[in-house]
C-alpha cells in the first residue's frame, strides 16, 4: 500500500464498522473477527506509515489530491494528513492498544451488553477511527469533526453500561460539548484573523502578519487550551472522568482510559508546537502578571497532587485508577509546558508509556472484576494465591505507575523530573515525586490486601464478603483476556529498556523547533 498507508489507518476501522452494519447485525459471531481484522489492517498501515516517516522524516498525504497553491509552497486548499515521528508514535499506540482491547473484549462485551454486541463493536471501531484521524490530520477543522466522532462514540460506549453509567455519560456529554465547542470557537478566532484552517498555514500567517500580540490569537489559544483541557480531564476540569470511566463497561474503560486523554494531550502539544509555535506558547506575555508557562506548570503540579490524594481516598479499584489518570494528565501537561526540549520529550514519551500502563492496569482490574464480581480493594484478599499471573501483570503495571526501573514509568519520570530541574520548576519536581510516593502507598495497600490471607486483613473494614463469590469455583481466566494483559505488561518493560530509541524518534521530530533555555 506504501503511499496510501496513512489513509488506510483511518479507513480500515471505518469500513470495518460498515461491514458490521451489513453482516454483523444478522451474524453476531462475525462482529469480533471483523473488528480484529479491521484493527489489524489499521495496525499494519500504521507500522508502514511509521517506517516511511522514519525514512523520510515526514509523511504528507493530500486528501482529494488538492495540492498546495503556488506549486506546493502556498496555503493548503484541501485537507492534508501529516505524520511525523510524534504523531506516528501516538498512532502506533492507538492501533496497538485498540487491537489488544479488542482481543480482550471477546468475552466481556457479550457479558456486559449481550443484546447490542454489533452496535458496540461499530462504535468501538468508529471511536478508533476518530482518535486515529485526530492524531493524523493537519487541518484544524477536520480535527474538530473527528473529535466529535470520538466524543459521540465514547458517550455511547459509556452509556451502554449500568444506570449510573448513563448519568455519568450525560454529564460527559455536557462537559464534552463545552470542551469541543471551545475548541471550535478557538479555531474560529484563529480563522477570523488568519483566514486559513491548515495548522501550518495558521502558524505561517501568525508569523507573517505578526499577529502574536493580537488579543484574538491570545483568546484563541486560551479557548483551545480550555477545550482540550476539559476533554483530557485536566484538574480542576476533571469532574466528568471518574464516574464515566468507572461505571462504563469493562472494555470501554480499558479502551478509553489509555487512549482518549492521551490523544487529547497529543493535540494540546500539536497546538502548542504546530499552530502557535513554541516561541508564542512559552514567551512571557507583556501585560500578563504571570508567565504563561509558569502558570500552567503550577496548575499541573496542583493537578498531580490533587489527583494522587483523591486516588488515595478511594476504596474501589476502578475509581482509584481514574483518579490516577487525572494525576498522570498533570504529568504530561506540566512536562509539555516546562518550555524545554526534555520536558516535551518526556511528555510525549509519557503519552506512550502511560497509555500502556493504564491499559495494563485496566485490563488487570477487568480480569479481577470478571473473576470476583467486584472491584473493591477489600475484596482482593488472597488474590495473589488465586490468580498469580494476573496479579503479576498488575504488579508490573503498578510498579510502572510508581516509577520503578526498568519499567517505562521510571523513564518517563526520569525525563520529566530532569526537565523540571532544568527549568527550575521545583514544585513540579516535588509534585512528581509526591505522586510517585502516593502511588506507592496506593498500590502497596492493594498488594498487601492481595498478598495476605483474609484473616490478617480482617482489621480492615470489610464491606464485601469474599465468600459470596467463592473464587475456587470460578473458571480460569480466559486466554483472550490473559494474553492482551500479558502483552501490555511485557510492553511496559520493553518500552522501558528501549526508551532511548523512542526518545530519539521524538527528538528527531522536535529537532526543527527552536527550544530556547527556560526563563528563570
Amino acid at each position, binding site marked *: 500500500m506504501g503511499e496510501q498507508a496513512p489513509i488506510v489507518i483511518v479507513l480500515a476501522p471505518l469500513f470495518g464498522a460498515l461491514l458490521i452494519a451489513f453482516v454483523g447485525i444478522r451474524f453476531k459471531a462475525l462482529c469480533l473477527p471483523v473488528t480484529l481484522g479491521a484493527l489489524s489492517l489499521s495496525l499494519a498501515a500504521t507500522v508502514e506509515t511509521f517506517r516511511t516517516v522514519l525514512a523520510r522524516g515526514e509523511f504528507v498525504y493530500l*486528501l*482529494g*489530491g488538492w495540492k498546495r497553491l503556488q506549486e506546493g509552497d502556498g496555503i493548503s486548499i484541501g485537507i492534508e494528513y501529516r505524520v511525523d515521528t510524534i504523531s506516528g508514535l501516538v498512532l502506533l499506540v492507538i492501533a496497538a492498544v485498540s487491537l489488544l482491547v479488542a482481543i480482550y473484549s471477546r468475552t466481556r462485551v457479550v457479558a456486559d451488553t449481550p443484546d447490542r454486541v454489533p452496535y458496540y463493536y461499530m462504535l468501538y471501531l468508529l471511536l478508533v477511527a476518530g482518535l486515529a484521524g485526530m492524531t493524523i490530520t493537519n487541518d484544524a477543522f477536520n480535527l474538530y469533526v473527528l473529535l466529535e466522532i470520538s466524543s459521540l462514540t465514547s458517550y455511547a460506549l459509556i452509556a451502554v453500561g449500568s444506570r449510573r453509567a448513563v448519568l455519568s455519560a450525560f454529564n460527559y456529554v455536557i462537559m464534552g460539548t463545552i470542551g469541543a465547542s471551545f475548541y471550535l*470557537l478557538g479555531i474560529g*478566532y484563529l480563522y477570523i484573523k488568519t*483566514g486559513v484552517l491548515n495548522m501550518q498555514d495558521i502558524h505561517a500567517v501568525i508569523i507573517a502578519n505578526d499577529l502574536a500580540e493580537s488579543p484574538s490569537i491570545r*483568546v484563541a489559544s486560551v479557548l483551545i487550551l480550555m477545550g482540550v483541557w476539559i476533554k483530557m480531564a485536566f484538574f480542576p476540569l476533571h469532574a466528568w472522568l471518574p464516574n464515566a470511566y468507572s461505571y462504563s463497561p469493562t472494555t470501554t474503560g480499558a479502551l478509553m482510559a489509555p487512549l482518549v486523554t492521551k490523544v487529547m494531550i497529543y493535540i494540546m502539544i500539536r497546538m502548542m508546537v504546530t499552530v502557535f509555535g513554541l516561541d508564542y506558547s512559552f514567551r512571557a506575555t507583556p501585560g500578563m502578571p504571570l508567565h504563561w508557562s509558569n502558570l500552567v506548570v503550577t496548575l499541573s503540579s496542583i493537578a498531580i497532587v490533587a489527583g494522587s490524594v483523591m486516588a488515595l481516598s478511594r476504596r474501589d479499584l476502578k475509581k482509584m485508577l481514574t483518579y490516577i489518570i487525572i494525576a498522570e494528565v498533570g504529568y504530561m501537561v506540566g512536562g509539555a509546558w516546562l518550555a524545554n526540549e526534555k520536558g516535551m520529550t518526556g511528555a510525549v514519551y509519557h503519552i506512550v508509556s502511560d497509555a500502556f500502563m493504564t491499559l495494563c492496569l485496566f485490563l488487570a482490574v477487568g480480569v479481577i472484576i470478571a473473576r470476583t464480581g467486584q472491584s473493591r480493594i477489600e475484596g482482593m484478599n488472597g488474590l495473589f494465591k488465586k490468580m498469580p499471573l494476573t496479579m503479576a501483570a498488575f504488579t508490573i503495571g503498578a510498579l510502572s505507575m510508581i516509577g520503578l526501573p526498568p519499567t517505562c514509568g521510571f523513564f518517563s519520570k526520569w525525563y520529566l523530573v530532569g526537565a523540571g530541574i532544568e527549568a527550575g520548576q521545583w514544585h513540579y519536581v516535588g509534585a512528581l515525586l509526591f505522586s510517585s510516593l502516593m502511588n506507592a502507598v496506593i498500590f502497596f495497600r492493594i498488594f498487601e490486601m492481595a498478598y495476605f490471607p483474609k484473616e490478617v486483613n480482617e482489621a480492615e473494614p470489610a464491606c464485601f464478603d469474599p465468600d459470596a463469590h467463592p473464587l475456587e469455583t470460578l473458571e480460569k481466566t480466559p486466554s483472550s483476556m490473559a494474553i492482551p494483559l500479558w502483552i501490555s505488561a511485557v510492553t511496559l518493560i520493553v518500552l522501558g529498556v528501549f526508551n532511548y530509541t523512542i526518545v530519539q524518534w521524538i527528538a528527531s521530530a522536535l529537532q526543527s523547533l527552536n527550544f530556547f533555555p527556560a526563563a528563570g
Partner: protein
Amino acid sequence: MKGLALFAVAFTGALLLYATGDFPDWGSLDSPANGGELSTHYIKEVRKETEVPNIVTAVLADYRGFDTMFETVVVFVAGIAIIAVLRDFGNGSRGYPPALANNLPEEPDLIVTQTCNLVIPVLQIFALYVLAHGHHSPGGGFQGGVMLGASYILIALANGVEAAMKILSERKILLMAATGILIYSGTGLVCLLLGENFLDYHVLSRILPTDPIMARSHAMLFVETGVAFTVTAVMFSIYANLATRGTLKGGL
C-alpha cells in the same frame, strides 16, 4: 454550583468580549477570512476546477470532502449510538414511570392523517429535487436527506411509528445508513484504487465518460447521494427511537 457556573460563564464572556474589539468589522470585505487567499481561491477557481456553480457544495463535497465524509459518519454514529443506548430489545415498557405519551388518544386524528398523506409525496419529490439540484442552488445531500427523513417522520406522526416502520424497518434503516457511507467512501476508494489519493475525483474520468473536471462534478453528486441516504435513515431512526423510548412500538 450556581455561583461557580456564573463565574465560569462570566469569565468566558469577558474573555470573548475582550477579543471582540480586535475583530474586523462585521461584513468587512478585506478581513483575513473574507479577503484571504483561501476564500478568494474558492470563489475564483471553483468553476475552473470543479465546474460546480454552488461554491458551498464544491467546497463541501470536494475541497473539504473528507470533512464531509466524517460529518456523515457523525450522523451514522448518532444513529447507532441512540440505538445502542436507548433501544429496548424485547422486554417492552414494563415498569416505566408514567409519561405524557400514555395519555394520548388511541386513534390518530383524521385531519392530521389526511394532511400528512397529501404533503408527504410533495415533500419527498422536493427533497429529491434539493438533493439533485444541489450543484446549482442551495441544497444538497444534507438538506435533501433531512427532508426525506422528515417525510418519514411525518408518516410516523400521522399513522404511528409502526406504520412508518413497515415502510422503513429497523434493518433497512441500518443498511441504508451504512450504504450511504459506503457510497461516499466507496467513491473515494475507487479513486484510491485507480491510483490516485483518496477522494481525488478527477481520476474517475477514466471510468466515467467525462473529462476530469466534470468527473469531479459528477462524483460530488454521488457523494451527496450517499450523504442523503445516511441522513434520511438516521433522522428517521432517531425520531422512531426517541418517540417510543426505544421500543419502536406505539409512539406519539
